[in-house]
């Protein structure tokens, strides 16, 4: 599944989440599981807020990290794919 730049992603309806220090814990009520995301993972997850597009998420991270934008995009798309596979986020539009 290819993540498109225009997609808008949001947490799965059954998910709950909280940031604890530099980590984010995401509980999936429908699966009875919990995942702990590291700093950058938690940041990407929190940017999947049902408002920003994937392109906008990449733009936001590009302002914060000293990496090539293409590398940031690759990491965001890969991580978003992983989150979708695990049912932590879904595509809104």
């Amino acid at each position, binding site marked *: 599944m290819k993540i498109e730049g225009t997609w808008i992603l949001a*947490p799965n*309806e*059954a*998910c*709950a*989440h*909280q*940031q*604890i*220090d530099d*980590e984010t*814990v995401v*509980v999936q*009520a*429908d699966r*009875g*599981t*919990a*995942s*702990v*995301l*590291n700093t950058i*993972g938690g940041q990407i997850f929190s940017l999947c807020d049902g408002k920003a597009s994937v392109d906008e998420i990449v733009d936001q991270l590009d302002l914060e990290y000293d990496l090539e934008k293409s590398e940031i995009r690759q990491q965001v798309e890969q991580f978003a794919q*992983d989150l979708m596979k*695990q049912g932590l986020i879904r595509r809104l539009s």
Partner: protein
Amino acid sequence: MTQLSGLDRLMRKTMKKAIPLSAHIMVTDRCNERCTHCYLPGQSKKKILALANYQKIFTQLRQAGTLLLTLSGGEPLLHPEFFAIAAQARKDAFAIRIYTNGLLINEQNTRKIRDLHPIEVCLSLYAAHASAHDSITQVPGSFQKTTSAAQTLAQAGVPVKLKTPVMHGNFKDLPQIRSLAQQIGAELQESPYLYPPGSNCANASQLCLSKENLLDFFSTKPDSHGKFRLQRDRTMDVNQHPCGAANNYVAIGCDGNVFPCPMFEQPVGNLLEESFLTIWNQAPLLQELRSLSWGDIDACLDCKLYSYCQRCVASVFASTGGLTAADQQACKIAEACAQSAGKNV
């Protein structure tokens, strides 16, 4: 990304850093049952918080680091805005758990609960037969309603847990209760520990299992008593907090009073008067609990029963007014658990 190992580490971190990961919210103290063993006081006419209050409280809890809200009572569905409060909690990205007796759960409420995506709905089941269950709740027909609610919820795909405090009066019913839980498709949590009596329950010691019954309890179905068994081989860390209360756990009463946990009767502040973080960081009793470690509990140091112990600090506080005495009920249960595991204690 890590799974449960990361979560264990997070639990330890929240304990160490006093982050209130879990909050028990008693949205009302009204109840439509009158359980003989209940630790809550009887009916009161306390003013209950409204949705608008909870919106502010939830914002404060999010900022403090809370992830899980247990919506409880009394019977929480008696709060006229229960579903709006629960929906607000989910909107604010909390995980929710609901404690209910199920008497008000019908098909419509089941759909509402399912759509809230709770991590679980816990219902109290005291017996496998109507006469025994209803004699404990003191409400005729409650067995039928509770078991029917559990079944309806389970069929709707909601994770259901039946909680059975194992007492003198229902001990012999346990095999049937286990079968009933299996039929319903619900997890069953059995515990012989009865939480400290409030003014409503002066006879907890008469309700508790005898030593003989406790031995039977732990030997009949060992695997089901994980809460006691799983910690069999743990060793005491004298620097560890003996309880989550005030460390990563807090309770909020229906009128905004804050407690270290639901079993403590002493409020440490009120959310209508102070912010949550002010109370959480500054209340003397919370600070005292936070400073308490196993090393401070002389009665328990070097105890061979430690691995089996479920000491309740609220129970100790209720019975002694202090925090460092042994918990006699926990000692009795741990002794039986250890003996049934073949330990020479």
